[in-house]
Every structure is written in C-alpha cells, then in structure tokens.
C-alpha cells in the first residue's frame, strides 16, 4: 500500500541525507521525495511517498522520529489530504497541425505551455499522480522528449497543522 508521509525537519546540512539514508538502510522504499521550506523559518518540509503495510509504516514513522533533526512525522491519508505533483513535459512538434492538436489537448486538461520552440513545446501540468500519468499517456503519441516531475507534495484538508 502507498503512503504519503510529511516530515518536518530542522534545516541542517545533511538532513536530507539522514532521512534518505535511513530509508535505504532499513530497506524502506522511496517512490518520490520532495523537499522545501515550510511555514516556519529554519524548518524544512519533506514529503515522501513510500510503499508498505501498516507495520512498515509504523517502523518508518518510529525510525524517522528517532532522527534528532526530525521534528514531526505524519502520515497523510489520501481521503483527508490534498495532493499535487507538478510535471514539465517537453513534446516534439513536427508540424503546425500537430502543434494545434497538442495545444487543444492541453487546454482541455488545464495545462500550460511554458516554452515554445519550432521543434518543441514544453508543457506544465499539475495534479494528482494519476492525473499526470493519464496526460502523459495522451502525449506519448506525439513524441515526448523529456519529463521532469517534482514528486508528490501534500497538505491535510481543513485547518489542521502538523506543527502546532
């Protein structure tokens, strides 16, 4: 089963290495990892998507909590959180027709074109992982040159906060 875990850590050098090395060392898997500033200065929020049953999730949470620089660990269940991922997709465009077709497609699924070139279009899509996957499939036939994905980030719904 997939889990999305939010980890609030002290913004110290090497903290990301500590977190990722723990996953590696204890044979926990990382499907995606995203890190950035949180609402509080000096605290970084890491979002990790991982696989495993309840026991593994419990161990991951406990082992993460043991890291001195880790302040809070929270599992964010799908039903009660908002999840997003951003993808940049570069698609090759060989003809005007093709380009129009892609642009219509993008409008239909609320993407943005962020770069245009004679030979290529770069598209920005945000959404859940599933939504992005579905759109990638649609674009495949045009010839995808490059993809860059951020990995999932998430917040719980409502006014709850991890850091009190």
């Amino acid at each position: 089963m997939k889990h999305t875990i939010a980890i609030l850590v002290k913004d110290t050098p090497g903290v990301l290495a500590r977190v990722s090395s723990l996953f590696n060392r204890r044979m926990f898997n990382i499907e995606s990892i995203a890190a950035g500033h949180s609402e509080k200065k000096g605290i970084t929020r890491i979002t990790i998507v991982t696989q495993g049953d309840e026991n593994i999730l419990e161990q991951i949470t406990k082992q993460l909590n043991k890291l001195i620089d880790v302040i809070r660990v929270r599992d964010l269940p799908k039903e009660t959180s908002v999840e997003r991922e951003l993808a940049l997709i570069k698609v090759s465009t060989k003809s005007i027709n093709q380009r129009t077709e892609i642009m219509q497609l993008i409008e239909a699924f609320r993407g943005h074109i962020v770069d245009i070139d004679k030979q290529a279009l770069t598209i920005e899509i945000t959404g859940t992982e599933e939504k992005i996957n579905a759109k990638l499939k649609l674009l495949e036939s045009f010839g995808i040159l490059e993809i860059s994905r951020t990995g999932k980030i998430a917040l719980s719904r409502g006014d709850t906060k991890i850091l009190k």
Partner: protein
Amino acid sequence: MRLSGTEIVVECLKKEKVEVVFGIPGGAIMPLYDTIYKKQYFRHILTKHEQGAAHAADGYARATGKVGVCFATSGPGATNLVTGLANAYLDSIPVVAFTGQVISPLIGTDAFQEVDITGITLPITKNNYLVMDVKNLASTIKEAFYLARTGRPGPVLIDLPKDVQNAKTEFHYPEKSRYSGYNPTIKGNLNQIKKAAKAIQESKKPVIYAGGGIIASNAAKELKNFVDKTNIPVTTTLTGLGSFPENNPLSLGMLGMHGLASANIAINESDLIVALGTRFDDRVTGNIKRFCPKAKYIHVDIDPAEISKNIKINIPIVGDVKYVLSKMNELIEPKKEIEWLTEIAEIKQKNQLEYKRDNILRPQYIIEKLNEITGGEAIIVTDVGQHQMWAAQYYQYLHPRSFITSGGLGTMGFGLPAAIGAQIGCPKKKVICISGDGGFQMNSQELVTAVNNNLPIVTIIMNNGYLGMVRQWQELFFQKRYSSTNLEGSPDFSKLVEVYGGKGIRVTSKDAFDSALKIALSSKQFMLLDCLIPPEENVFPMVSPGEAINKMLGVNQS
C-alpha cells in the same frame, strides 16, 4: 571570555566532568592536542590505534556509566574510529568522539587526510555534527553529551575543521539543552503500566527477559525489588548479564543461541514475557516465528522504535525502565505461582551446564575457576567468539557493569582496549580480560597502552589455535571444511607480553592454571595467561540458525 575553538572544547569537557580521553593526535587535530597539553584538565590515554581509543572509551562508559570520550585526527584517524562507534551504537553505549577535519575551505576538495566522516558515521551514530562556525561549538558539545547519555544512549561524533579549532569566539556554555525533535519519554504511560500489572497478576507462567537497558538505566535495584515482590524468574540477554544476580534462585541465566538450556526451555513454556530494556535480537529469539508460542508480551523500552519491531507486543510501555519498574513496584500485588516455580526449579535441575570434567585444561573450567576465586566481584571484559560465550555461561554475574562485552556488533578485538577503558574507569576493581587467540591479535598493539599505564589487568587468552567460533560452525554446518580458520603461526602470547614489558605465563594444565591465576590476581602489573585449550572444544548449548530456541544442540533433551 574569548576563547579559541580548542579552548572551548576543553572547557566544555571540564564542565561535563570528563576525567579521561582516549585518542591519538594527527595533523588536523593538533590544535586540540596543543590545548590539552597546556590545560591538563583531564587525563589523556594514548592508544596505539584509533579503534583502540574508541573501544577504550566504550569500555570506560560501560564500566562507569559515564560518557566515554575519544579523539582522532581526520582521514584515517577518523575512519579507524568507525568500528568502535558502530560497536557503541549497537549496544547503546554513550560515547562522544571528536575528530579533526581539514580546514573548512578545503572540505570537499579531496584534500590530504580528508574524509566525509559525518557522512560515513551517519548510520552508526545517534547524531553527528560538522561544526563550521566556532560560535556553534559550545552548544554543539552540550547537545552531543546530552544526546549521548539520555534516552537510548549512543555514540555522537563531532567533526572539527582545523580552522574552526583555531577560530575565537565568546565562550558561553549553555546550562540546558532542549531540542524540538528530541524528547525521550521517561515515565511511561500509567494506564499501560496498570494493564501490565494486571496481566502479570493473571499470568500463570511469567518470565522476565531483561536486557542491557536495565544496566543503561541503572535499574538493577528496581528489577530486584520487582522480582522479590512478584517471584517471576529472570532470564537475561548477553548484554543484560549482571542486571540480576545469578546466584538468586529465580535467575535462569542467559537465554538465546548459546543461552542456558534452562532459560531457553523456561521462556518457551512461558505464558507472559515481561521484556525489559531489550530488543528481541535474532541471537536471543532464534527463529522468531517459533519464539515462545504460548506467550503474550509486555515490552518496556525507552526507544519506541523497538516496540513491535521484531515481534508483535500486546502491552507496550515506552519509558525508562527504571521509572517504569519503580511505578510497577508500587502498583503490583505480591505474587507467587508455586506450580510454575516448582516447574522452573525442575527445569533448572534437569538442564545444568555440562562439559567434560577431566584432567584437561578446558575453557569452561577456566571460567568456573575464575568465578570461584573472584566470587563474582571482578569486572569481566571479553572479546568475541567461543570464549565470550563460555565467559557468559560459566561465570556468575552478580552486579551490573560487571560484564563488558560486544553484543550487537560482535567486534573481535574489543576485549583488550575495552578492558583498558574499564580499568581506567574503575582503578580499584579487578578487571579481567578474557580473549581468544584470534580476537586478541586484532588489537594486541594495545598491550603497550596497558603496560605503559601500569594497568593491573589480567588477560586470559583461550588459545585453541583457531578462529574458534567460525571453526565450530564449520564443524557443525560445513562438514568440517576448516577454511582459513587455523591460526597457525601465532606467537607465544606469554612471551609477546613480556616484550611489551608485562608479565606472561603459558598455561597448559589445570594445576598450572590454578596457580597462575592466583599469581595474576594478586599482581600489581599487567599479566597475561596464555592458556592452551583443546582445539576443537565447542560451545554448547547451541541453537542452530533458523531453529526455535528450545531446540538446542549439545543438550540431552528428555
């Protein structure tokens, strides 16, 4: 007061009441060594290898309960600490290591003697620090000592670039250390404790399984009170030896792979296991799927990650076992399961340790004799292997911190340097290092350290000419193909020690051992007994890997 980085280090160590540091100087840590030379706040023991320094700090910590401290230079000095830190980490021993580092502008350039020691030690330290600004140094040291000794103890490393050692700043040592992400639970949840007390009251065949956590939290007295009240038999792990007096009728001795048959059989029959400061290690449980099929579990540990890690726990209590036990002692009603205790007495009676009591100098005899003569009052330090198991089985441990051994990591070469640390920490105690001819040669350079510091350690080498435990496995599971386990060509260790300036006796018979031991125990100088034992003596009982712990080799099971 403006101080340099190295002056800050020694002032902080003074505040932390550090009495001794083990280490070796080198390029990147020279400023610190210069300052300790000038200040003379504490004793410095020069070991001959940084691994020796780390193990000595570890042995010192185990023997005294204080934080052990070691110094090493950058690069190879730092990497030589690695085994010692891993050893302390796996047995949860408080150690603080300081390493020199190349000057900060050179970090990352593969400079001379540069390694990323915080990266290397990341998974084997409780935490580590690369101090890049001298302003953070004092608070980092405060935090390091606090982390090393509180919660589940462990080693902490501080890496100090040479320019940070020399840089100056205003010195202020913080009184308290509080960190948002670190707040160990000490007291334990009262409802859980009540639940546990109830389960104990209702159980018919309870067994206490006590580990190194009892010793780490100085809870031996609370454990004794608990047992006096509840009459629950106690088995201990290897690192838990000494947490409960083994001359008590309720002591079952050590359990596990080479545990006593009585302990393994008793726990297997149990309906309630009270696990105290321990972590269900594979060497204890054997095949975990078949571990104690009839039992429910209470587990007290300060580390929440140990709860239900290896085995599902029915009543978990996260807390310091000392606090939890004293609370439990208030709540619990006196209890005595006569039938169970009769059964236990029978199990103990039927399953005594056995070996061939003939005229040959056997390792089991050596330990029995040692026990008889010292009356359980010595500090026994071991290396790793067969001799370690014999020392665990045949000596009767009465006090916490009287058995010092590398449990989790199983580090050969630990014995001698750890004995040095223990003897320096406990100058009035008789420290006995029991080693094998294999392990001893992994850190025998520390003979100089021991002799030079006039440490009256008695070292007993159980010399069987083999890497004995590996040979035993080859005999039992590899059809006697003794691949690279013969230690042919080893020196006469009694002569080797004399070259270093100590005293040595080669012992080949029981009588000779008896008299040599008496000489050694009354000696004021370092003494080594090189004891030639039968090459193919095996450690029994033994639970084969993958077996349930009540299925033992070398035991007559009726």
